Structure formats: C-alpha cells, structure tokens
C-alpha cells in the first residue's frame, strides 16, 4: 500500500487554490500595466527597500517577535496545566480556550477598548483606589496586548497537543533516576515538546506579522505595520504591484526565519517540522 498517495488530493487542492493564486501575486509584483500594455519591471521591489518601508518592516518584526515571546511565556505553563488535568475535564478546558475567538474579532476588540479607555472599566475601577493610570489605549504595548490576546490559543493548543502525548512512564523514570522536577522539565519535557513549540511560534508569529486591524484599533493607527501597508496598497491606492511586492518580500522574510528556526531545531532534536 502506498500510503503517501493520501497526500495527493491535498496537493492538488493546494496547487489550484494556493500555488496558482500566489503565482498571480508574484506576477503582479513584477509588472506594470499602462495604456501601452504590460511591462516587466523591478520598480516595485526597488521601492520596498526604501528606508521608510524598511522601518515599517523592522517595527512589525519587532512587535510580532515580542508578542510571540510573551505568548510562549504565558502559553507554555497553561498548556502544561491543561495537559496535567484528568481526562474528562481536559477537552472541555481546551474548547473553553478557543470559544472567545468565536465571538467576532471586531466586537471583541471594541470590548477591549471599553475596558482600556480613559473612562473605561479598568481605569474606573482602579480610580476608586485613588490611582491615576497613564493612558492604556493607543500605545505600542496595547498593540502587543491585542496580539497576545488574539493569538495565545495558537500557542497553547499545539504545545498542549504535544504535551498530552508524552509518555508518563518516561517522566517517572527520570524522577526515579533522581532528576529534580526542574531537570525533568529541562531535559525531558521541554525537548519532547519542541515540535509543538515550533508549531506554536509559527502560528503566532505569522498572523502577528500580517495583522492590520489590531494596530489600527488598539494602536490608534499611530504605528503603521507591514499589514497596514499592504492593505493600503490593495484597497486605498490600488497599487497592486507594490502591494504584491511587499507581500512577496514579507513571505521571503518569514520563510527565511522559519528555515533558520527549523535548522536549529534539527540539530538539537534530530528532525523537526521540516
């Protein structure tokens, strides 16, 4: 039986609905259309490398990285707690983790604004204790908060799903051999959970890098991120060529950084996600 054939329907699906559309984007990024017809050009790419756009790239990468790290720090312990619960409660807790995301994104973000505003709930409650808070909304930190809030489940779930599979006997063996809980974690649990961690990092980092609504609503649009820039090219200025070039470069950056992360993992662990 040729089991790998099972991947073929999916491969075909991907070819039609991912590869071809992406090829269209790639084509748009190297052409200009004017009255005389279609021309090949590299101008769009040249423009991407102007300082002003590089600054936007840099800020987006910075904010997405910080958000991903915070998600990992908050999410990993949570995944461990979830994984340690007894079976009947476990799947319910996991679902509870995802349900908030079923309440529409815009509605949830508006709700965050209600919480964080100057006259918002948090400021009012803290105000009762006579403490004046600095502005909670419209800072870089608010944008990070919004990203962590929205993408935390994407970190917790993959890590959790790997952690539950770890053989309890291995942990017990380590303990029997005299390992402290910390050493068990560092030498056994963490290395075994790495495939989940790298899935999680990718699933958080990528949407964090491309989102544009969070920085607009929670950041007060003070901070242009790469997602905003791309959205603006496709919708406001109708410069599909430049927009496509931006997203091609964005994809290259992500693929490169992923390749780097994966190679590191392979050395450590012998065969990661790639």
């Amino acid at each position, binding site marked *: 039986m040729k089991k790998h054939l099972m991947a073929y329907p999916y491969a075909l699906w991907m070819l039609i609905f991912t590869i071809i559309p992406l090829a269209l984007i790639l084509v748009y990024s190297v052409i200009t259309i004017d009255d005389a017809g279609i021309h090949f050009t590299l101008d769009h790419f040249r423009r991407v490398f102007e300082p*002003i756009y590089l600054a*936007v790239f840099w800020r987006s990468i910075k904010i997405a990285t910080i958000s991903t790290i915070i998600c990992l720090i908050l999410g990993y312990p949570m995944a461990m707690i979830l994984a340690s619960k007894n079976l009947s409660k476990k799947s319910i807790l996991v679902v509870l983790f995802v349900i908030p995301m079923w309440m529409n994104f815009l509605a949830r973000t508006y709700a965050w604004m209600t919480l964080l505003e100057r*006259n918002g709930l948090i400021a009012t409650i803290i105000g009762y204790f006579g403490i004046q808070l600095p502005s909670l909304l419209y800072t870089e930190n608010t944008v990070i908060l919004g990203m962590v809030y929205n993408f935390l489940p994407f970190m917790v779930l993959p890590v959790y799903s790997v952690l539950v599979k770890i053989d309890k006997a291995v942990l017990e063996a380590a303990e029997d051999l005299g390992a402290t809980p910390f050493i068990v974690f560092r030498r056994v649990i963490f290395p075994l959970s790495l495939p989940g961690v790298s899935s999680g990092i990718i699933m958080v980092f990528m949407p964090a890098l491309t989102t544009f609504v969070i920085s*607009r609503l929670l950041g*007060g649009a*003070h*901070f242009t991120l790469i997602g*905003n820039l791309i959205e*603006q090219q496709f919708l406001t200025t109708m*410069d599909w060529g430049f927009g496509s070039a931006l997203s091609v470069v964005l994809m290259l950056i992500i693929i490169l950084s992923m390749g780097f992360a994966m190679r590191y993992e392979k050395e450590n662990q012998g065969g990661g996600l790639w």
Partner: protein
Amino acid sequence: MKRILKSLMAFTLAVSMILGLAGCQGEKRPQLKVYNWGDYIDYSVIDEFEEKYNIDVIYDEFATNEEMYAKIKAGADDYDILIPSDYTIKRMIDEDMLHKIDFNNIPNYKYIDDRFKNLAFDPNNEYSVPYMWGTVGILYNKNMVKETVDSWKILWDDKYSKQILMLDSLRDSIGITLKMLGYSLNTKDDEELEEAKEMLIKQKPLVLAYVGDEVKDKMIGGEAALAVVWSGDAVYMKRENSDLEYVVPKEGSNIWFDSIVIPKTSQNKKEAELFINFLCDPEIAYRNTDYIGYSTPNKEALKLLPEEVTSDKTAYPDESILADCEVFEDLADSLVKYDRIWTEVKAQ
C-alpha cells in the same frame, strides 16, 4: 471524538433548518442585486419595493468604498445598483464602469434639489443620482473646549495634546490640512503637499489616535475633546451626548455625496432604474433619511422631516458655509503622492 462530531452535525442541521425555513421562497421573479453601505437604508423600503413591483431584491452591504471598488473592478458580481461616494464614482466613470442612466425612467428625479445636480464628479449628471450628502467638520466637547471653534488650526493647538482624534483616512486628513493652509483639497502641487506633510508630522504628537468608525463611541464617552468627523455621524453623536457641538471651519471643508449608480455589469437596467426612481419618491426618501439620520438631497422629503431636524445646522448648514466646501475628485496618478505622505506621517 465521533460523538462530538455527531452532536455538532445534529446541531448544525437543526440550526440550518430553523434558519432555512425563514428564507424559503417559491416562485421565480426578476431579481435586483443591490450593494450598499451597511445599515444605510430603512429595510422596510426594500420589502415594499419587492411587493409593489414583484421583484426580488438581493441586498448586500459593504464597509468601505475601496473594498467595494476592488471587488467590482476585478470583475466580480453582477450587481445592478451601487451606492458609492463621490470620488469613487468619478473613478468608475473614468474607467468606464458605469451605465448612463436613462432619466426618462426616473420621473422622481425632479424632487432632487438643483444644488445637488451636475456635481464635479459627474458634471453632466449622466451617471448618478444623489442619495445622501454631508460635510466634514470638527466635533468638540463643550466641557473641554471653552473657546470658540471656527478654524482647523485648533487641531494644532498644544493645549489639546492627546485630546485630538484625527481620521485614519488619507484623503480626509491631508484634505483638511490643505484646507487649513488655504489650498484646494484636490491639489496635485508638490510644494503644497510637502507643506501639508510637515504640518501633519508636527501634529502627530498631539493626536490621541487616528480613528475610523470608533470615533462615535469615543466622542460620546468623552474620551477626547476634538475630533474630525462626518456630519451624518455628528448628528447621531450630538443626540447621544448633548455636550457635543459640530462646526464646519471657516477655511472651508469637504462636502461629500453618496450617490446611486448602475454598474456596467448590471443585467437588469430597467429594474435598476425602477429602484432608483422608487428611492427618489419623497415619502420613501423621507423614511430612509429618518432611519439613517444623514442629510437628504430630496427637497420634498426635506419638507416631511420635523422642524427640529431641518433647522439643525449640523445636517443642513447655511448656503454660505457650503460655498467654501469642495467635493473630492479622483486623484488618479497623484494618489501615490498622497499615499507616500500618509505613510511618512504614520511611520514616524
């Protein structure tokens, strides 16, 4: 696992049946596909139209001109009626995306105020019929701003640092800056634009946020002292919070229109014209205006509105104020310059 899936399936089936029943309809009637802003019509008007002319209306809503345009431009969807704003209409006319309307089929067009005919985006009035209109101005909170507000310059006053809400829209924000400097808001002149850019960069530290539709809740809740808003929204905000006041600055401003057009993709032009005529009926226009709360260009509908609405200068300002207001024109290739300025301001 299987059990969960089974319950899920049963649940969907139940829900879809309940919801599906409500949407069931039998015989086949001519169809009219309408694409409008969200919450921008009194929905009972659609029902009435369907009943009166025995036509099925498929009604969809969009969030911004740009999204709608991108979709239509790419060749998607054979809508019969669109209600975009002025500069988008201009662009669609230039790109030959609209049908000329046969005004013989729109007898109710005579109810449209002459002031709102032959506008800059459709000079011979061949393609569009005005639906709603309004201005852009400053909304301020009387408890936080004690001085008289009559100039855009107040948005550059240090006193109101982190109390100012600007619009996160490059046309509007650059436009009012140009107006403040005494230039046209459709300028393509590099020096004028450069000057506007400097002003916007200077203003940035004072701005609390560049907002979109959230501005309404912000101003009602007293989160900021000053905001740049559209007049239609100002009417709603003033109703919700009586401390708010709206003014169109003396340097002039933008006057905008949302007009009804028929795209080239339409396959039911006759029905579309029937629908436009229906919307221009004074009684129907009155009901839509009453529901939406924006300003109507229909002079007969205006007479039906209560005195307190029509005397409100926010929605229906004096002629003299409108004289200094400009309509946005499509910038065509110069839009890139505006985009560049806006990116530079925002990337600071």
